[in-house]
């Protein structure tokens, strides 16, 4: 069977689900953050394959912007994690419950 849009979308869906499971099930802040990156990459893959199979370049421009924003987001998020670690000496979500009612 010839590889088409459906195949790429299925890979993107699997990647997104894996990222979502990682965010929900893992307890380490850094690993959760990496799973978020997986989800962003899954969206990128879907956009690039849509752009290829619809013969429009706009999807790839959007992916370019997403990569830029993701880089900024990683920098800010990791700075927040480091600041949190300095205060609490932990990067574990179960130790960060002071906002719980």
């Amino acid at each position, binding site marked *: 069977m010839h590889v088409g849009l459906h195949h790429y979308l299925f890979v993107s869906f699997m990647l997104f689900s894996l990222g979502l499971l990682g965010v929900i099930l893992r307890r380490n802040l850094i690993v959760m953050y990496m*799973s978020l*990156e997986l989800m962003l990459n899954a969206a*990128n893959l879907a956009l690039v394959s849509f752009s290829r199979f619809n*013969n429009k370049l*706009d999807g790839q421009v959007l992916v370019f912007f997403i990569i*830029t924003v993701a880089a900024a987001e990683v920098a800010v998020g990791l700075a927040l994690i480091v600041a949190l670690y300095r205060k609490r000496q932990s990067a574990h979500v179960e130790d960060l419950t002071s906002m719980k009612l």
Partner: protein
Amino acid sequence: MEALNNLLAGGAVQDVLFYVFAALTLLCAVLVIANPFSRSPVNSAMFLVLTIISMSGLFVLLHAFFLAAVQILVYAGAVMVLFLFVIMLLDLKEEARRKIKFFGFIAGIIAVGGIASAFFKTLATAKGGAAEPTLEGDTISLGKLLFTQYTLPFEIVSVLLLVAMVGVILLSKKKLE
């Protein structure tokens, strides 16, 4: 040489390469979130690098050459170095294996099931797209689009990067006032 070109244009090699890269991407993604041998965040980061590199292989198969290069440069280069730097800075210990919470497990099943149902419903109703895609995502055409139609978003993104830089410097100061 002519035979090689015909083989590449025929798509059989590209189909095989798609399956290789897709399998590699998904395998490494599984190892990022659930490595059976080690819970160390460094291992997760290394497998995330492998995931990203095999995904840029998929980008090349989709003829998005510029994005494949950017993916490796920005993600595998800059972002993952940042991740590894923070992991080593914080000196994170290997995460203890603890029982997965029942509630978290149920929430994960429901979330993934919801996405799966939406995905398969869309696939069942969607048309397949162009049968013979001709788009080339090379640097010239992407750059032209970026500096004509998408100039304003491009400038806004550069401001966003500046804001993020200022924010990170402020956040990582020793004393937060």
